[in-house]
């Protein structure tokens, strides 16, 4: 088929309609979901795949999922057998060793039929707040994937439009937060149904042959644009090494390595040199590593580029089996996203010399999970709660890193304090920026944030995070951001006693105990002594930077009486630097 035979008008119309279908799936899922993690924090994704299981359109929610989803859905469908799917069926899957990621991320996949013919698949993934396993919210440090929760190979949860009650009860029996999970599954079903209706409408309007023909064209179009974008990237081999701070059982670092080769054949990512997999939660599946590389490549391209199979085919990843970047059964995987997001930071670090104006300095580069649960004394129900916390973003060549935001493939919202306290027996005691946590630079990194959780009743709390040994890296003379702190604060009558916690640990909370998260700041860009003193002043006046730090790290003397920069003292401080 040549381009000339394609009607550019029909092309654009169908392309928009397919994107709209995925967006409507996302809205249906969010608005009818029950758990704070899905309904408020938007920890889910939706997409449409064609009959050949190529990714065609996506809703713009969580890029981490989207990158892994495109691997998981085809594998799950092939394992189940497309020939075994009838109209109205939906299959459920979360198997990390069947193309999946960690167990909380459960995909529901529905074949779409038009006049009895299988024409594609709608699929949605939601991070369920609990999937059983060794700790509430199913986060924690375990030795094997079996301890992490229920493993669901592709199974038919909905047969010809009807939920298989026996199966559903079996799944729910493994799960602590039954009511919320039931609601979230129902929302996933509604989402797939919404998507299927839209797809059928498109086919009704244009006919099945045109539908297929234009899907091919949409993917080819993306391919052409991606190829043009790849051709613009600098050629060469770029490498970086870094680490995850610990694996949750031993204190040693987990080394990650990445090599990016850009030549006429395209872009290849290689994680050879990364540590062997651990009997600890930091292992990333191949799908997760692929997702990190896909995100990095996409972020270097035209913002307007669609993301579908025509793009993903340019993401070439070699991740040696048995390493923390491509673990094999039965390694635990719940913290695989921590490894994934560090890989993202490493890829940008490696590319910084070649693309100094495109990348950012080190971000918080961790998922930073806070999970807890226990019995809710008011309802008698077992409750679970999960959220991830923001940190400082890395500085860029012409701008500061924003304060307290999510990074890379993760863009989940915070849980409102009032909603959280209404629904769960916890009190959020503080939620604020951390002054002086930025990585100094001509452009500074963003500030990290602090969130304190106080428990009036007993509860089990899991920290599954990172970055308490080294802060996010600076670039071109910029300095690293602050390291994270996870602390348990006990009120022992004689005052408050604070104990540092590991970044991956589960703690039994006694009434009145507080867990305090203080997340890392972003890395700086360029020498801090080159920072415009007026920008330093603005940070000091806003209370984001102390006068002492302005002096010692930026060589800027602030006259707080005059709300002004002391220029001569600043010149003196900066002399010879």
């Amino acid at each position: 088929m040549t381009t000339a035979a394609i009607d550019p008008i029909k092309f654009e119309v169908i392309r928009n309609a397919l994107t709209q279908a995925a967006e409507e799936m996302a809205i249906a899922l969010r608005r009818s979901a029950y758990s704070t993690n899905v309904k408020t924090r938007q920890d889910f994704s939706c997409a449409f795949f064609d009959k050949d299981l190529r990714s065609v359109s996506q809703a713009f929610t969580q890029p981490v999922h989207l990158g892994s989803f495109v691997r998981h859905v085809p594998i799950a469908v092939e394992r189940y057998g497309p020939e075994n799917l009838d109209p109205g069926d939906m299959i459920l899957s979360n198997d990390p060793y069947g193309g999946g990621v960690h167990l909380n991320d459960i995909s529901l996949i529905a074949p779409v039929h038009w006049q009895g013919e299988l024409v594609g698949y709608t699929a949605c993934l939601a991070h369920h707040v609990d999937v059983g396993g060794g700790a509430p919210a199913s986060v924690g440090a375990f030795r094997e994937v079996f301890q992490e929760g229920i493993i669901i190979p592709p199974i038919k949860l909905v047969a010809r439009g009807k939920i298989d009650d026996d199966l559903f009860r079996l799944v729910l029996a493994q799960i602590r937060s039954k009511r919320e999970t039931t609601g979230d599954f129902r929302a996933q079903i509604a989402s797939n149904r919404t998507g299927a209706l839209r797809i059928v409408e498109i086919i009704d309007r244009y006919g099945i042959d045109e539908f297929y023909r234009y899907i091919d064209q949409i993917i080819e179009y993306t391919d052409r644009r991606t190829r043009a974008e790849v051709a613009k990237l600098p050629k060469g081999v770029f490498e970086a090494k870094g680490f995850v701070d610990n694996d949750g059982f031993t204190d040693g670092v987990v080394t990650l390595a990445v090599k990016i080769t850009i030549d006429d054949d395209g872009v290849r990512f290689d994680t050879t040199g990364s540590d062997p997999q651990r009997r600890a939660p930091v292992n990333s599946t191949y799908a997760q590593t692929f997702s990190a590389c896909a995100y990095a490549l996409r972020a270097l391209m035209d913002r307007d580029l669609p993301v579908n199979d025509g793009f993903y085919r340019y993401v070439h990843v070699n991740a040696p089996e048995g390493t923390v970047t491509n673990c094999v059964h039965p390694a635990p995987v719940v913290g695989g996203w921590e490894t994934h997001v560090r890989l993202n930071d490493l890829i940008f670090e490696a590319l910084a010399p070649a693309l100094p104006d495109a990348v950012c300095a080190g971000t918080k580069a961790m998922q930073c999970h806070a999970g807890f649960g226990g019995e809710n004394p008011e309802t008698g129900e077992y409750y679970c709660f999960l959220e991830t916390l923001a940190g400082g973003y890395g500085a860029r060549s012409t701008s500061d890193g924003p304060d307290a935001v999510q990074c890379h493939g993760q863009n989940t919202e915070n849980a409102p304090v009032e909603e959280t306290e209404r629904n769960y027996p916890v009190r959020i005691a503080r939620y604020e920026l951390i002054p002086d946590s930025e990585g100094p630079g001509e452009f500074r990194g963003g500030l990290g944030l602090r969130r304190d959780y106080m428990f009036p009743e007993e509860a089990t709390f899991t920290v599954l995070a990172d970055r308490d040994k080294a802060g996010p890296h600076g670039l071109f003379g910029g300095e690293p951001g602050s390291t994270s702190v996870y602390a348990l604060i006990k009120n022992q009558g004689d005052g408050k006693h604070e104990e540092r916690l590991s970044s991956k640990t589960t703690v039994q909370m006694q009434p009145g105990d507080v867990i305090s998260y203080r997340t890392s700041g972003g890395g700086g860009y360029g020498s801090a002594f080159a920072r415009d003193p007026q920008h330093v002043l603005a940070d000091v006046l806003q209370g984001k930077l102390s006068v002492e730090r302005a002096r010692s790290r930026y060589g800027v003397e602030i006259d707080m009486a005059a709300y002004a920069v002391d220029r001569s003292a600043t010149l003196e401080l900066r002399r010879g630097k």
Partner: protein
Amino acid sequence: MTIPGTGRYRIGVDIGGTFTDGTLVDSATGQVTTSKVLSTPADPATGFIAAVKKLLQSESSIAPGDLEHVVHATTVATNSIIEGKLAKTAFITTEGFRDMLEIARQIRPSLYDLQFVKPPPLVPRQLCFEVSERLDAKGQVVTPLDEQSVAQVVERIAESKVEAVAVCLLHSYRNPDHERRVGEALRARLPGVIISLSSDVVPEFREYLRASTTVINAAVSPIVSRYLKSISEKLEDAGVTAELLVMQSSGGVYPAEAAVRSPVFMVESGPAAGAVAAAALGSSLGYPNVLSFDMGGTTAKVSLIRNGQPNVTKDYSVGGAAQRGTGAFGGASGYPIRTPVVDLVEIGAGGGSIAWVDSGGALRVGPHSAGADPGPVCYGLGGTEPTITDANLVLGRLDPDYFAGGEMPLDVEAAQAAIRVRCADPLGLSVEKAAYGIVEIANTAMVNALRLVSVQRGHDPRDFMLVGFGGAGPAHAVRLAEQAGIPRVLIPVGPGTASALGLLVTDVRMEGSATLIVRSDEVELSRIAAEFKRLETAGRESHKIAASASGDPVFERSVEMRYWGQSFELSVPAPDLPDIDARWMSELVEAFNDAHETAYGFRANGEPVELVNLRLTTVGKIARPQMKKLETTGTDASVAVKGQRDVYFAEDVENSGHEGMVQTSVYDRARLPAGAVFRGPAIIEEPDSTTVIHPSWTVKVDDYGNLVLQR
């Protein structure tokens, strides 16, 4: 002090980006007079009064004292937010949460952009303060309010010379006592400073959304107050003593006095007017369910009207880039407000939207606009990039010699050349085909917007009538209807100024709400009755200041509900029963189950349902002006034919056999008699707009001169 007008005339003034439109209605005869003057962005009040004076002068028999009231839609609040020109404002919250506005929702406004910036908080960090106090989620005091910490904060705010203060303490939606005490301390020390308490502005949970709404209310209040004062003075100077009413984002109006106190309710005042106009037109003609389609020079706005009322939402962000309207994914680029806003989707598709071919060889339209300067290529004002207007001209849909009534000749050759170079040649298409493509792609974006407000909210567009207006709306409305499967289209009289007419066909509406957050099986029914009673009393009080509303107020009660555990509420009208009893509750729950099934495709019968907010709207009815009938009647439309020209039609080859340039009759709308019936293809021209009738559509001119189009 405003006094109710004695006269029979009403004026509506709608300030847009380019023009300020005025409409004067004679309530007795229905005679409508319009005026159009250039907007004066530096001081919008100047354009406002110019439009009013022009109206008064056009009807020599009207004395300023003959006016009953003046209704105004303004973007002054939105613009001050978008342009960062808010009043200097301080923010007070609970200790430990000073950075609530700065952290916002912790998300990035765009996913793959490493260079993104967060919208700056509306109050800088040095003006955000904490007081020592804490309530729990039930509203019980955990830490009593520390009066000393309040006094210190008040003193620091006094030193900082702010014009406004917003207060949002945790869980104040449940128990406003601490907030009120902080408010008293502020008022005592800072006379003349605007104080907004979150428990007054929007007593609803989720602290960031409530704080954001409260901050916007406080920060725009001095600006709105100055602006409305300036307008009132200018009206007085002109001898107009009639009441000044302001359009709210929800589509109701309220007195200027109420607008100064609660300006956050009028942030989207401008766009709401169009939806109200469409609703009123539809209702008066017996079509209570319509889709409103308002297309101007830079954007198109669509909204859905059911039972004569625009759909209203509370998920809204002001000043968001790439605004996807009011969907759940408004994103992190703007500032959320939780006040009722007409649920409209606004997209960057207007006459000035630019067409281009992207690096993958796809034809695209927008989001960039040539605006009014340089404008479309055909204006000959220096524009080089082809726009939707250029495409319509090339297709013969616009007359180069009758644009703006002939005041502005258009350059067809320049438009053709631009489309050839920028679009047709790169795609290997003829100029006409490329021009057609530009229009079709823009139409697709607008159809998607129509779907967002209809299908996505569970409404089938085929059950609606499309009302097309705005300068560019009538040229696109029929084709949109075809694509969305809408069977009927209405093009009102004077489509270019129809929006301003919307200001004169609405009621005074005052919103009140109370948060309950309680399960239907656990709530004390007496509490619901008591809360509604309290809201009603407050509504009656506020009704007293609206001089124009005749008679007793009417109350609309609704309940925002969800399944226990969900986060998004659906608004359900309260059952119309004399008592709030078990039957009332069971009807309410059933209505919610129905609404949920309509919206999301499933109902969870038997699951606990939560009542989140009670809403009571106090409606002061304003009599509607009578519409004026056309003087000439007759079925023969040929009297209005002013000529023939070639117009491009391609979309329904199979149905009609028409493709490409078709010889088409051009009608002068002013000469069409009531009762005239004719078939497309046809072009109907009037000074401020051109209606394109596609083949296989039939036009009927109703008694009032509206065009009713059917397939």
